[in-house]
């Protein structure tokens, strides 16, 4: 893939579709398409002559099933369409929504226009070039648009697990998180995996939170400033002291000394106590069996 922003999912969908999507950008930049569009109802008939596979079967069951091809692929108004070319311009010059997602300008934003400005889409909306590696665009989180499902249709906890999987795809990957400008590491994912919150999600709780419940989706709150706001969604009256308990820091002597030494204390207490008790029991049993063997008459 020649372009740095290209989402994984598009890679999977194949170069042909990718080129198609990019081509519509060109039209978006010069939207005065010549001539009247042919009837959109003909879309399925004509487009699918060539573009039948691989996605159409899943598309019929997707949340986008009611859309027509050219609702998104706006540039291809004639059949057959012009050969498509890869976009090679400066992506950050695209306005306005394209600043966060060039693809979204042409396709997603046509319907999903209420997603906010890139400044509001913190921190994922920042595509100012200052951050490496590149931040995610629509499809990085939402996946292949021809197969997209409404997350609201999923029951809990499947919905939260799906949301968590979306976040951890990047935030659980050390290659993406350790390097770059942010260098936030995968500790948040690891500590969440050991938290009471995730345990309850995995055990089927409808109330326990996933990533998005605290951190938000499109309109991510900066939890470093007022983390208790997120806590208060469930724990009414939570204070900053309360929120300080969820730091996403690993339990080490340096990062969380109280937790660390509490665990160490109980680990040794339990080990030594049970060792002593088992030793006592073993001696007792050994003696009883020996006594029985020695005095078979008794």
């Amino acid at each position, binding site marked *: 893939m020649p372009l740095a922003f290209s989402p994984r999912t598009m890679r999977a969908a194949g170069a042909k579709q990718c080129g198609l999507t990019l081509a519509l950008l060109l039209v978006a930049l010069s939207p005065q398409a010549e001539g009247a569009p042919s009837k959109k109802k003909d879309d399925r008939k004509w487009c699918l002559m060539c573009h039948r596979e691989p996605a159409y079967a899943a598309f019929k069951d997707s949340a986008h099933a009611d859309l027509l091809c050219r609702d998104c692929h706006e540039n291809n108004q004639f059949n057959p369409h012009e050969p498509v070319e890869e976009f090679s311009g400066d992506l950050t010059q695209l306005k306005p929504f394209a600043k966060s997602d060039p693809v979204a300008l042409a396709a997603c934003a046509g319907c999903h226009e209420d997603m906010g400005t890139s400044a509001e889409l913190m921190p994922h909306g920042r595509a100012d070039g200052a951050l490496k590696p590149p931040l995610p665009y629509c499809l990085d989180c939402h996946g292949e648009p021809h197969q997209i499902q409404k997350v609201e249709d999923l029951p809990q906890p499947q919905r939260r697990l799906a949301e968590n999987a979306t976040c951890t795809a990047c935030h659980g990957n050390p290659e993406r998180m350790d390097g770059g400008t942010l260098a936030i590491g995968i500790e948040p994912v690891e500590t969440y995996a050991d938290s009471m919150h995730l345990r309850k999600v995995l055990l089927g709780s409808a109330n326990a939170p996933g990533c998005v419940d605290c951190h938000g989706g499109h309109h991510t709150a900066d939890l470093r400033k007022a983390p208790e706001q997120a806590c208060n969604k469930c724990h009414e009256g939570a204070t900053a002291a309360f929120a300080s308990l969820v730091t996403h820091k690993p339990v080490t002597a340096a990062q969380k000394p109280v937790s660390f030494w509490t665990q160490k204390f109980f680990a040794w207490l339990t080990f030594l106590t049970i060792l002593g008790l088992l030793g006592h029991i073993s001696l*007792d049993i050994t003696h009883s069996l020996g006594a029985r063997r020695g005095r078979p008459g008794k």
Partner: protein
Amino acid sequence: MDALESEETPVAPAEPAEPPPLVAAPAVDAPESKEPPAAPVEPLQLLGQPAVDALERSESPAATVEPVPPPVATVLRFDLHQRLQHGLLASSFVLLVVTGWPLAAHSAKASASAAIVALFGGIERCSGIHRIAAIVMVIASLYHLAYLAVLASRRGLSASMLPSPGDLRNLGQNLLFFVGKRGERPKFPRFSYFEKFDYWAVFWGVAIMVGSGLVRWFPVEATGIFPPWVYEIAHYAHADEALLAALAIFIWHFYNVHLRPGVFPMSRVFLTGRLTLEQLQEEHGAEYEELMRARAQAEAKAKEGG
């Protein structure tokens, strides 16, 4: 308690001035000693020499002056209050361990956790039952403390449950006995060192579990009152102490009380509250000897009085 025990013949009381050898000493309850003629009337249930003693004593006019209830084949070890306290504690403990396990386990995906949660009808209900069982355990603990307070105000608490140097001696003797360097089991007092260990382990354990459990139940309130590190300690202490307690109870306590050779598969003392004199002599030799000595003294005194 008195009413319940009145139909059973208690063990002879020691000198009234001498503190009873029990934490709870229903066997030396006063009311019985007020009806001395009634006690010796049923000597037939007695066996061996003590029965003969009792028969002789019943003919003695001194018995009406200095009442000496006869020894019996069984002695009361745990009265109804103690058995109720134990029952509440034990049932709430098992329920707490089972319902707490899924959230304490480090892999919530584990099938055992999922199976337990399914058994209780979902994680929310599982947590609800955990809290109800916790309340039962708190009630049992308060019941026990109130019971101790009443005993203390009535006739003074004996120190028989307190750790003493004799416990260390007994431990050494018992280990020597286990490895064959000593011919006989040490003569344990009313509460042997391993029984005292169980009692104080539970005492410490309940305090930790109730304290940390309350902090975890009311995290917002707790962090409003205490600094946040208190919650941190409570969070880890609750799960870790629970593991220690569960291991200690299900391995150590169960072995010593129910599973050891000679008792297996189950002791009924926690239900009946009674030990036979033979069991008493075997398991609490020092207490048995004290009992016999006290009885002999009382008898001697009775004869002097006559």
